[in-house]
Structures are given as structure tokens and as C-alpha cells.
């Protein structure tokens, strides 16, 4: 587009010869406005005498009869802007006392004193385009280097990964040994937990089904009540007979809760809850909501270099696992209530045996994760998996951080990791978002980075940051702002975004001559 702009400027320079045409008409439309001949509105809606073109009264629906006055609400005015870029402005800006066209042609009757600034603007723009072109050129060279380095780095890392995988084998035996120990220790715990959970779940579901089946709420599930659930038909032949129902109830006409337990296995596989149809949706959302803060803290998405933190991560992972168990196994009705201890629907506490097992697990865990190699291994894997651009040109940003200090805060952008804000004069750091994705428009997806799920805002969303990348020789954060509360915007220059500049040598020479 640089080239395009320059060419445009160039063409303006060349064509700056005045061509007779009504005020405000671009050269391209000159042929429609023929002096002395009736004028047909460009939308073809009507034909008017030529003296009604630019007579300060709007005759054409499309505004085409008044290209040079403000008479039509939807018209546009063409400024030639010799020496700069030609442009269209809305008709409403003609003679409003404000200089819009650099060639002053929009203010011909308003008393406004406008200076022709086109040459100056043209010069400035050419200068700045040139400067940008130079930056782009240098930046692009740097980018090539970056790509080269990135590729080499990648090979290194792949090699390293190989090494690690080698040593991994050595260590695997050790780990395996430990893992065996750990699992041996954990096995009873897990089993106990699952048993406990399953049993509780099972009886909860049974009770629920009983209540659902017991339509008349008489405390018994009867044959007629069962018959309304055709899915329970044992032979699934489409006719669920009373005899079949009786068979399911163990040969009696009705069962109470105690008896229901004994026939539960007959029913549970096929039974379809009446309320099933509507429950999943709200369940889904509530799960998401509850999960959200968890993923916020999931710094294991991006491993840090220090081991202790990684340990924490693993703790979280474990907790996550636990949580997942809860989430996917506990029946929906119990979910929201699980936080309240005294609630009837809540899962009862673990029995002592299970609790002991859970407690005992920690010792093994610590031992296992003292092995640092796993971290390094996962780091490399992770790094290799990032999208560092089509040619890995953004790879060099990885594990780097860039700061910008404003009057109040120090902003820190750690690409592919996160953005933070820290008060300049003490105070704790705020997470403005963790690496989310490339979020530029389709044609330049790598021009915008999105960091999401930062620290939550009161009454608002969690903080997020949009990082706009522009071409520059330096890699530097140039500005930050918060256009909306908790939605940050950061401008970031780096060579990796630079595009190959067109060869400008010739055209810039010609400009000198103009």
C-alpha cells in the first residue's frame, strides 16, 4: 500500500493541470457534467437544465446535481488537493467555516481563511512514507535475520528435545519406580474416593428416579407409574405391558423406596429422566462460570523457569483433576449445592479411611516432582507448539519482556506469556491478560495479539489487552491505554511484523524532481 500511496501522490502531481468542470466534480465524472446540456442525475432519476447544477438547491435524490454546494444532504465534494492526495468530503463540509480540503476549495464562500497546505502535507507525507519505507526495509532485513535465527533455534531446540528425550529414557526407569510407589499409594486413595463418590451418586440418582417415577407421590412406585416410561420396556418391542412392568418391580404391583433399591438394577440403565431435556443447558453455563477462575490461574499453560512455581502448577493440576472428577460425576442437581456443607443434597464428607489416603498422597507427590527434568521437557514441547508466525519470525519474543513506564504504572508485555501492570510507587502487580491468540483482521492476522483472562474487574469482565504490532527496527512498547475499563490497548513495534517494502528507489527520485 505504500507503493500505491506513493503512486497516487505521483499521479496527482502529474495531473495537476486544471480541467474545466463544475465545482466539486472529480475528473473521473467530468463527462457527466457537460456545460450547456441538460444534466441527468447520476442515479438516472431525473434530468434538469444544466444551470441547476451547483445552483445551491438539491434536485437529485442522489445529490449528484450539487457536487459543489452543501444543498444535498447526501452529496460529496471532490477536492483535487494538488500536491497531496485528492479526496472526497461530505457536502455538508462545504462552506461550513472549517478548512477540510488542503487546497482550500471547500471554503469558497464562508469567509473562512484557509491556507493551501497541500504541498506541505504532501511533502510531510512523502517524508513520512519514505521514513516508514526505510524502517520497513531495515525492519524487513532484521526480520530475515530473525527468521534465520528462529529456524536455527528451533533446530537446536528439537535437538535438545531429542537429548532430553534420551535422558528421559534414563530417568524413566527411576520415575517409573517412583510412580509405581506413588500409584501404589494412591491406588487405594483413588479407589476409596471413587467408591465413596459412586455409591453416593448412585443412591442420589436412585432417589431422584424414585421421586420422578412416583407420580402420585404416595411413596410407592406402581405398575401404572412405570408404564408411562416406555423406554423401560424390557424387550423394547414397542408395547410395554403391565406384566412386563410387574416383572421389573420384582413381581409386585408397587414398591417402596427400600424395595426399589433391590429392583434399581432393572431400571437404571434404561430410565430416561423427565427433566433431562432441560437440565443440561444451565448446567453447562454454571460449569463454565465456575471453571473460569481456574483457567485464569493456569499458569501451566506457560511454564515459568523456576521450579517452585512449577510445583505450584502441579498442585493446581492435581486440584483440577479433583475438580474435574466432581464436575463430571456429581449429578447436576447436586452441583450448585456442593459448596454448602449442611445441605442435604451435598456429598457427605469422605470417610476417615479415604481421608487418610488422600493425606498420605502428598508425600509421594513432592518426591516425584523434585525431578526437574520434566519441566524442561515440557517447556520445549510447549515452545515448539506456539504459532510464532509463518516463518517463526516472532519466536525471538518468546521468553522476553518489554516494559513501558507511564506516569502511574509500569506496563510489562511478555509476548506469548502475559501482560501486567504494576504501580510505579509500590503495590502489587495486576495481570492484564495471558496469551490468548493472534487476533488481527483476516489479511494480517499477525498484526494484533490478544491477551485474555487477566485479573477480574469488579462488576466487569476480567482484564484483557489488545496489542497492536507495527513495523519498527526496535522491539519496544510505544504506548498503552485503557479505552474501556479493564480493556487495555498496547502499541508495540517490532521488526517481525515488517513486510517486504517495494522498491522505492525510482519513485522517490521522481518526487524530488516534481
Amino acid at each position, binding site marked *: 500500500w505504500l507503493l500505491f500511496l506513493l503512486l497516487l501522490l505521483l499521479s496527482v502531481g502529474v495531473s495537476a493541470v486544471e480541467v474545466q468542470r463544475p465545482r466539486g466534480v472529480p475528473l473521473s465524472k467530468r463527462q457527466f457534467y457537460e456545460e450547456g446540456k441538460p444534466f441527468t442525475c447520476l442515479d438516472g432519476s431525473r434530468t434538469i437544465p444544466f444551470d441547476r447544477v451547483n*445552483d*445551491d*438547491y438539491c434536485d437529485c435524490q442522489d445529490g449528484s446535481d450539487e457536487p459543489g454546494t*452543501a*444543498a444535498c*444532504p447526501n452529496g460529496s465534494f471532490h477536492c483535487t488537493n494538488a500536491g497531496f492526495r485528492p479526496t472526497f468530503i*461530505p457536502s*455538508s*463540509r462545504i462552506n*461550513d*467555516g*472549517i478548512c477540510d480540503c488542503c487546497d482550500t476549495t471547500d471554503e469558497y464562500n464562508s469567509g473562512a481563511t484557509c491556507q493551501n497546505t497541500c504541498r506541505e502535507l504532501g511533502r510531510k507525507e512523502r517524508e513520512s512514507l519514505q521514513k516508514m519505507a526505510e524502517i520497513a526495509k531495515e525492519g524487513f532485513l532484521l526480520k530475515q535475520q530473525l527468521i534465520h535465527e528462529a529456524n536455527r533455534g528451533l533446530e537446536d531446540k528439537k535437538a535438545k528435545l531429542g537429548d532430553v528425550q534420551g535422558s528421559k529414557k534414563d530417568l524413566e526407569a527411576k520415575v517409573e519406580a517412583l510412580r509405581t510407589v506413588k500409584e501404589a499409594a494412591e491406588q487405594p486413595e483413588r479407589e476409596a474416593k471413587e467408591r465413596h463418590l459412586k455409591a453416593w451418586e448412585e443412591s442420589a440418582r436412585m432417589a431422584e428416579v424414585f421421586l420422578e417415577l412416583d407420580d402420585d407421590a404416595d411413596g410407592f412406585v406402581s405398575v401404572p407409574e412405570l408404564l408411562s416410561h416406555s423406554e423401560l420396556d424390557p424387550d423394547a418391542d414397542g408395547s410395554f405391558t403391565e406384566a412386563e412392568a410387574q416383572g421389573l418391580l420384582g413381581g409386585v404391583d408397587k414398591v417402596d423406596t427400600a424395595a426399589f433399591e433391590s429392583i434399581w438394577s432393572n431400571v437404571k440403565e434404561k430410565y430416561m429422566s423427565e427433566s433431562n431435556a432441560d437440565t443440561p443447558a444451565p448446567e453447562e453455563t454454571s460449569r463454565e462460570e465456575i471453571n473460569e477462575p481456574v483457567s485464569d490461574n493456569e499458569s501451566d499453560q506457560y511454564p515459568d523457569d523456576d521450579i517452585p512455581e512449577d510445583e505450584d502448577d502441579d498442585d493446581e493440576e492435581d486440584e483440577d483433576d479433583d475438580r474435574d472428577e466432581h464436575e463430571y460425576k456429581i449429578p447436576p442437581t447436586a452441583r450448585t449445592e456442593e459448596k454448602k456443607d449442611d445441605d442435604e443434597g451435598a456429598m457427605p464428607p469422605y470417610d476417615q479411611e479415604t481421608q487418610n489416603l488422600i493425606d498420605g498422597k502428598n508425600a509421594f507427590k513432592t518426591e516425584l516432582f523434585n525431578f526437574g527434568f520434566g519441566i524442561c521437557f515440557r517447556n520445549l514441547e510447549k515452545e515448539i507448539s506456539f504459532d510464532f508466525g509463518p516463518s517463526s519470525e516472532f519466536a525471538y519474543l518468546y521468553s522476553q519482556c518489554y516494559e513501558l513506564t*507511564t*506516569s502511574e504504572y509500569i506496563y510489562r508485555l511478555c509476548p506469548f506469556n502475559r501482560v501486567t501492570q504494576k504501580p510505579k510507587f509500590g503495590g502489587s502487580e495486576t495481570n492484564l491478560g495471558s496469551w490468548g491468540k493472534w487476533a488481527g483482521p483476516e489479511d494480517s492476522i499477525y498484526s494484533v495479539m490478544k491477551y485474555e483472562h487477566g485479573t477480574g*474487574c*469488579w*462488576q*466487569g469482565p476480567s482484564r484483557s489487552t489488545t496489542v497492536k504490532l507495527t513495523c519498527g527496527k526496535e522491539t519496544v512498547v510505544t504506548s498503552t*491505554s*485503557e*479505552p*474501556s*475499563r*479493564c*480493556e487495555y490497548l498496547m502499541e508495540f513495534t517490532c521488526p517481525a511484523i515488517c513486510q517486504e517494502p517495494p522498491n522505492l528507489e525510482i519513485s522517490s527520485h521522481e518526487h524530488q524532481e516534481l
Partner: protein
Amino acid sequence: TASKCDCTLKLMFLSFGTWAVDKGNFKTCEQSAFCKRQRALKPGESPYRALLETMELTNTRLTLQLINDNNKVRLLLELYRLQGNITRVKINELKPLKPRYEVPDVLIREPTTEPLSVLSQDENGVVLSLGVESQRVIISARPFRLDIMEGSDVLMSLNSRGLLAFEHLRMRKDTQADPEAEKKEEADPTTKEEEEKVEDGMWEETFKSHTDSKPNGPSAVSLDFSLPGVEHVYGIPEHADTLRLKTTDNGDPYRLYNLDVFQYELYNPMALYGSVPVMVAHSAQRTTGIFWLNAAETWVDISSNTGSSETPQTDVRWISESGIIDIFIMLGPTPKDVFSQYASLTGTQSFPPLASLGYHQCRWNYNDQEDVKSVDAGFDEHDIPYDFIWLDIEHTDGKRYFTWDPHKFATPKEMLQGLMDKKRKMVAIVDPHIKVDGNYKIHNEIRSRGFYVKNKDGGDYEGWCWPGSASYPDFTRADMRAWWASMFAYDQYEGTMENLYTWNDMNEPSVFNGPEVTMHKDATHGAWEHRDIHNLYGLYVQMATAEGLIQRSGGVERPFVLTRAFFAGSQRLGAVWTGDNAAEWGHLKISIPMCLSMGLVGISFCGADIGGFFKSPSTELLVRWYQAGAYQPFYRAHAHVDTPRREPWLFGPENTALIREAVRQRYTLLPYWYQLFYRAHVTGEPVMRPLWVEYPQDLATFALEDEYLIGRDLLVHPVVEEGARGVTAYLPGKDEVWFDVHTFQKHNGAQNLYIPVTMSSIPVFQRGGSIIPRKLRVRRSSTCMEHDPYTLYVALNLQRTADGELYIDDGHTFNYEKKEFIYRKLTFANKVLSSVNLAPDAKFTTDSWIERIIVLGASKPSKVTLKTADGQEKQLEFDFDASMSVLTVRKPGMNAGADWTMTFQ
């Protein structure tokens, strides 16, 4: 700006996710000791008796003593007949222990009195003539009662239910060790009354953690009014409630006590930011008004016998915590008479600068100069006009008003110049709470001059507000106001220019840690308690600020000041908005009755935050709000700091186009808005008015609040329902026709018309018989349109006539007071349209001309001839659309200030 909620509220929020006012922060009548005490009085047991022998009648007034037979305390009643069919009744203690507060600065002058005469008198009472139309006042002696009669009709009765109560000032029991007082008591036989029982809350009252020390003890006043024949009463804003006031028998009375209510709830009688103690009563026969001039906390009870078989009657009862009874009974008889009667007392709407009727873009906050610049550029890029961009509290240096944040707004003049280059303006907020900070010039000056409100112990009152610890200037002092005004001088308020105007927020006053988020009632303003003046504080803040803006221009330029708190008389000072509303459909809907209620009591320049202040509007709601707001007097978008950005172009091109179109409609109508404000300024008529004001006999209009009139000639029924497919508008007047302003479709009056709507629809109708001037060349600000030509919309009625006005002046100075304006009457009759000078002694010239005349409901002429003042005639070209009967006259071209006639043959 929102008040800050306290922490408990914040927590509640998080735990329950509720979204509504915390009612517990504000008093019910039951929790307000004087209201509870007064409301407990039973009707029909009035202890008051008129002592007819004490009656004195002079040329200007009648005085008479009243005695409370229970405690022998005497009151002095004064009765005045005021010019323009107003009766004033004042009741005070005959010999108060110390003076009681009488509200100053609200009446524009001492009202002109007219003579009263005694028609008859006996031991039971006196009959006085009010001078006009067989109007009489009957004063009954036992119990005391006043009836205002016209012929044989009772227009209004006072103390007819016997609820007059006047708590006399008294010595506190435990302080009666004072020997002076005891002696006095012995000496004066009238004080040997039976001892009144001391109730809780008479000498001290605690609400939540706040104790009101009440050094003056009980001091409430109360009076009842009966309105025979009346079923509809209106006014007493500000409440988020229906236009027609409800009866209060089964709940709290309407409360008037200026409060910063966090996230107010709709449809209840709770107090809000402003108070105008004026009620308008209307029936098909007559319109009257009651103006209760008292600035203390006030409650208004309304009951009605509607539904019973008796003649309809509404009973009203006013209760105030302190001060005196000073009432103005405005006897109409038409709605417009009541408006002019009230205007004769408290003044009219200030005449705003034309630009302030344009669109205002506000947000808490535009972050810095760069932000302002880019929003400004956004309007140009998206071709949406606007006149003012606003800066909320964050623009200051640490919430120190009259300063700029040195980093974010380092070069304010540069910013203002940038706006001025585009003929646009800015408003910056100046709140009345002043940061207590020894390095802050404003604070130091106010403190050293002793201008702060004092706490009960005599020190400077301090409360918590945006800046942290803050003090509150005593705006009731004229010298304080003069000083404050001087702070707006360009050399005092650094970084300002003539295109910077002011917004007074938080002037209830809001005190985050005060009782009911406002100032302690026992704080003092010189001799008076805050209790006495509370509802007046906000008015004084705006008064001082507006004066500052006038003074800085040497008295040349009209000020523009927006206020949140207000009182009777605030209409003279600027604009009012409905405070911190929310992005909900209900809030959009209620903006109509809220502004209509204000208009009825003089405040025409009213608007609600477009889009809703709290929360984030759906795109549909935002678009509908822009459409509705385009047809309300004050048109400003505003948003809470915690909400996502919502500049008009952030919702996709389709919605940008819808918003652009709504704003453009506003701008085309600016000439009409402006002349309506001129009329409001001259006459006191509301700009935005309920239908019944123009159709006072049409019962179907009495409770309408989903549509209204702008002036007399535009009927607006905005779409305020989510997903609306259509609206049903009531078109009044069986002899009227109404023209859809968009399609020119003609509709008969006196019908409910269903109008299908799409997202682009804003149902608006022009009354047949009217002429409305518009400027169709919408530009990027109103100032850019100054010299543009007019299009006249002539809508013919069934008699094929129409009339209207055209007012033009410079749009921003007080020169109109020097008769520098154009004021013309436009008339269409007998196929002749003419423009006649309504103000021959006025002088003004304009570049504007008439570019087009559109006649709605026209028949096709064979020719149209224009005759100008110089006698020249010319034939004009025209178009006639037979399907819609619309005649468009092309480019007549005469100057808008000239005499001319146009003949349609």
C-alpha cells in the same frame, strides 16, 4: 457521575448479584421522625381556631392569628392576593423562640399584590373577595379552614381535613434550668398549656449509624388541601414514577429530599436528586397549582375518592421538617395560566445557547486529550453531528475541581482550540465537594475565608466524596457564590476558553459517608441548619456556577450549566438530567414521564443519559434510546466508567447509520427546538409537554406518558419496548389532522393509530395547522449550520390554514435581551403563505434564507407567486406529489428575516 456505593453495598452486590437501589440506605416515612409523627395525626381533629378579632386588612395583605387550642400556641396567618390569579398563604409562629427559615432566592421578586376586600364577616368566619371572576376566600374560624371559591364551586380547601400542624419551637426539657426561660413561662399565660408529650425523635434521631442532634427540637409543619373535582395531579418531581401521581394511602408519601440514590428503582415515591415542591391539579374544567415554598425534607401524601360514587376529589397533604408554611395557590384556570403564574413567581427556563440543544457526547471518562481527539475525529469519520464533548471527574488533578490532570490533560487549551476549530465545545465537571488538601488553592481560599459549611460543633464540615476527605462550600452565602463565580474567570480557571462549559454533579450534596449519602442535618449554614436549606443547596451551586460563566465573558455570553440537584427556580439556571439511570428498557421508558413532570413545574431543559448510565445497553436499546433522546430537550449520551465503550460507531455500520439518522433528525429540527426554548424563556410554557396541556378537555390524554408533544405541533411516540413491531399512538383532537413527518401520510385526530415500526422508525407527527421551520443541511455541529437556509413545513388543517413562528438570533449571547433577534409569524390562510414581523422593534440580520417550502395536505396549484417586500413578484417552480398531497416549492430564496407573501393559485 454515580455516587460511590459503600462497601456493604458492594459486598451485597457480589454475593447476590442483585441490581437495585439499597432501600435500606434511605428513610421511609416511618424512619423519619417528623413524618411519622405528622402522619399519625388523625383527620377531623384540628386544634386550630382563627381568632377573627385579630384580623387586620391592609391594601396588600390580610393577617389573622390562629390558635392551637391544645397548647395555646399562636400562629400568624398572612393572606395575599397576587397579580395573575395567585393567592399566597403564609403561616408562621406568632412569636417563635427564634426565627424560622423562610426560603430566599427562589422567588424572582417580591410578588406584586392586589387588593383584597371583605365581603362579609360574622363570628363564624370572613368572606373575602379576590377581585376577579367572583372568586372568594372563606375563612372559617372553628376549626380554622380556608375555602377558595369561584361562584358556587369550591376550587380548593385548606385544612379541610384538619391536618394543619405547626410544631412550635420550644426549649428542651433538660435544659430548662435556664432561669430566664422559666420566668418567661410564668409571665406568659399562653404558655401554660398542657404539656405535650415528648416523643422519640423530637430532640435526637438516629438513622443507621448517624445521629441527628436536633438542637432545635421538633419544628415540622404540615397542611392539607382538598381539590374537589380533581382526579389527576402531577408534578412534585423528582421521582422515577408515572406522570400522573398515585395515591399514597397504601405506602409511603412522595418524598422531596435531594439525594444521591445509587441505582434508583422505578415506579416508587422515593426521593431522588432534585425537588420542586409544586403540584399541578388538572380536570377537564380547570387546572390549578400548589407551590409549597419550603426547602426542608418534605413528604407529600395524596389520596383520592376515585371509585366511590361521590364527586371526585383529591386530597393532598404536605409535611416539611422545618421552616414555615408558605404556599402559592395558582388558580389557573388553564394549564398555560398555571405555567405563567408559576413563572411569575420563580422565573422561566433560561434561554440556552443554541449549541446546547444539539447532541452531547459524554462518558465517565474520556481518558486524555488523545482520547478526546480520537472521539472527536470519530464523529467526523462517521459523519455524525455533535456539539459538546464532556469530561467527567477523571480529567482533574486528583478530583480537585478547576484543575486538569497534568499528564492526561497537559495542554487543555490546545484541546479546546482543536474543538473550537471544528466549531465544537466541551463541558468539564465541577462538583461542589472540595478536596481537603493544604496544597490546593481552592480549598485554602475557601477555608481561609470561612466559606465552608460548618459541622454542629462549629468546625469545617468534612465528608467523604470522590477526592477522599472533602469540605462543602456554603453556597447559601451570597459572598461565597460571588467568590465561586469569580473562579471561572479565564485567568483563575487555568486552561479554559470560551468553548468550555460546566457540569455540576453531586450537588444534593452527595456525602458518601453522610446520613442517606448526604449532609448531616445539624450541619450549619450561618444561622440556619442544613435541615432548613437542604433542597436548596444544589440550586445555589448551579446559580453560582452559571453566574461564573456569565461573568467570565463580561456578561455577554449565555451560560450552559448542567445540574443533577435542583429546586423550584432551577429552571432559570440551565439544564437538568435525570441522574444515574441504567441501561434498561424501563429506564428509557420512564425518561418520558420524568422529564414531563419537570416540564410541568418549569424545568424544560431535561434529559436522561442516552444508553443508560449503569450497565451496558443492548444494541437495540442503545439505538432506541438515541431515537427517543433525539426528541427530548437535553440530548446527551453518558456511560459509567465500568461499562464498555459505546460511541455511536461501535455497533456495526447498520446501527451507526440508525444512530446517525436519529441525531440528524434532531439537528434538522434545531430551529424549532430553539424557538420553543425562546417561548419557554418568555412564557414559562414547557417545551416537552403532556398532551393534556394542549387538549385539556380530552380525558383520554390525562394519563398518557408514552407519548408527548414538543411545543404544540409535534407529537412524539418513541419506541421504548424491546423487539417492538409497532406502537399505538393516540392522536388527539377530533377536528385535528396529523401528518407523519417521515411519510407525510395524513391521519385523523381522536383516534388510536397503530403504527408498524422497524428499527429505523421514530413515530413523530406534525399537527395540521402548524408551520415548522427546519434546517435540512445537517452539518458536523449546530454552529456550522448557523447561516444555512430553512425549509418550512406547512401542515394544513381541515380549514386549510396553518401558522407558526420563526425565531432567529446569534444563538449564544444575551443580545436578544437588547432586541437583537428576528421573530416572525408565519401564516397560511386563503391560499396565501406570509411572513409577518412579530417584533418590529427588534433588529437582527441573518444570512439564512428560505430554500424550500413543503405544504402537507395541499392541493395542486396552477402557479405559485412570491411577492417580496420591495413589491417584486416572481413565479416559483414547484413539485406536486398527488399521492400524498405534498407540494414542494423550489427555492423561493427570500431572506428568512424578510416580509413576504406567497400565493398558491
